[in-house]
């Protein structure tokens, strides 16, 4: 069977499945093998079990009804058991989200729910819950302010030699139709994530980094009923809690060992990176205002 090689999030994947959303990997070392096969019904000695996923420290099984079942094992293999052979887009979509998240947790990589862009002065990451505008602000900075993409939706920080870098994710940003409309982008040439859903992958093949980028600042986005955008520097335990609360798919954390690892990683990162809390009005200000406010702050 033909095998494809891809690079994302600092890992080299060898895959039986064609993954057109990822860039190719030239390295010969394989970190993760993706294959098609049978996924067992249950994880042995699970430490967590819900109706859709179960996991132990090294094993994880997820069921997405009528699409696929996924098993992530030992941080180095993903087995995909498709329920519907014709739903290839869907099978890949849920692998990039939840199965990748489980993989990162097994490897202790502490995925953050954040999008990251960069320019010559470094990378800035935007964290926050779904729908808060992480992808929109990143897209706006790339589209109009000469930034480039590091990663959308999932951000992996790499702490090495006293420096915090962000690993390149996938070379696209996922955006809803209303955001693209406001940015006056034509969606006709774009591919939506699924036929029924008007959320699109906007490719940034030429505005994407192949190498890790040093992190300059972390922004946590939230919204309130208010008139103006408020940006405040955060310190102390609030800073710590913000980062911990924005770990992507934290329900996949298997237990105390991993929590301790993330605790230490969080402390190390926060000693080096300035953190800001950004509160947006619920209505009235568009992404342009946010982009300009943040650009101005970053230029100081």
């Amino acid at each position, binding site marked *: 069977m033909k095998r494809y090689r891809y690079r994302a999030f600092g890992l080299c994947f060898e895959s039986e499945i064609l993954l057109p959303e990822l860039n190719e990997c030239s390295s010969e070392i394989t970190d993760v093998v993706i294959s098609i096969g049978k996924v067992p019904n249950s994880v042995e000695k699970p430490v967590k079990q*819900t*109706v*859709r*996923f179960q996991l132990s420290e090294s094993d994880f099984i*997820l069921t*997405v*009804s*009528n699409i696929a079942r996924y098993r992530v094992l030992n941080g180095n293999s993903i087995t995909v058991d498709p329920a519907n052979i014709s739903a290839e887009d869907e099978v890949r*979509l*849920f692998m990039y*989200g*939840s199965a990748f*998240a*489980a993989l990162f947790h097994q490897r202790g990589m502490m995925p953050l729910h954040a999008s990251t862009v960069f320019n010559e002065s470094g990378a800035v990451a935007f964290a926050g*819950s*779904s*729908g808060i505008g992480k992808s929109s602000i990143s897209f706006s900075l790339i589209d109009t302010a000469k930034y480039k993409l590091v990663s959308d939706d999932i951000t992996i920080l790499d702490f090495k030699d006293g420096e915090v870098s962000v690993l390149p994710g996938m070379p696209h940003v996922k955006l*809803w*139709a*209303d*955001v693209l*409309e406001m940015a006056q982008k034509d969606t006709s040439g774009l591919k939506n*994530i*699924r036929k*029924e*859903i*008007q*959320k699109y992958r906007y490719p940034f093949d030429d505005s994407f980094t192949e190498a890790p980028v040093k992190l300059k600042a972390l922004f946590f986005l939230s919204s*309130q*009923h*208010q008139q103006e955008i408020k940006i405040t520097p955060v310190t102390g335990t609030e800073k710590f809690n913000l980062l911990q609360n924005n770990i992507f*798919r934290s*329900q*996949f954390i298997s237990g105390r060992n991993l929590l301790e690892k993330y605790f230490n990683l969080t402390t190390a990162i926060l000693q080096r990176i300035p953190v800001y809390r950004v509160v947006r009005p*619920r*209505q009235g200000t568009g992404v342009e205002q946010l982009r300009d406010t943040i650009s101005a702050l970053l230029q100081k």
Partner: protein
Amino acid sequence: MVNSRNIIWLASYPKSGNTWFRAILAYLYKKESFDINQLDISPIYSSRSFIETETGIDTTELTPAEADELRISVFNNTYGNFPVFFKIHDAFTFLPGGQPLIPAEQTFAAVYFIRNPLDIAVSFAFHSAKTVEKTIENMNNSKFTLASSPKKYNNQLRQILLSWSEHVKSWTEQELFPVKVLRYEDMLSEPDKIFYETISGFLKLPFTLQQVREAVNACSFSNLRKLEKEKGFKEKAPGCETFFRKGIAGDYKNHMSQEMITEVIQNHEQIMKQYSYL
């Protein structure tokens, strides 16, 4: 099959007194830390976050029908301990596979809040920053839904409301679990009695008349309004000025033409008569 009946539904068409009741429950259970922005004792059933935490699946990448199926599957396991409260604006409907939208077998009871549809038309129009005419049209529409745009992010799942009359019938005429109907107008005129009978008598929750009275006082409409003015209310829709606007009965007379009134009555006459609004 799950046999424990832990769940209490706080069901209503929007703007019918549901949040008022939820505020009172929050006060009863968390008096010391009472905050109108923390009514999380009764989250909305259409919230994406509880489903995503339970399933690890991004529901924005599911179709509305798939998301409904995923949500009900969460209840294949027993969910929480009595009492689990859920606020819900969906009509009581059945999924294409035939199962109810909500876990009926785990349901202890539902409280259904009903309000004069003439007043709802005005209140809901202010709430959603739409005209009263458009709101009346939506209330007549058997296919009316909330959060159903496939073009943008919504922090809630798609909710099928049906028409106002159909919404009332869907909850009050089902026979899978007991339902107590509370008229908003009765809640206004005799709050102590209505809330105590419902909370202690119907729902069997461990609160005395004295405690309910205190909660009713703390959550009087003027107090809720004051709290919203001081701190804002996160459940308010972005386009509307205040969530707790007037809260009175009969305000429709100040905002509706005779034609509008006639249109509402013509469309909802049977239910309006049944609940003494005509």
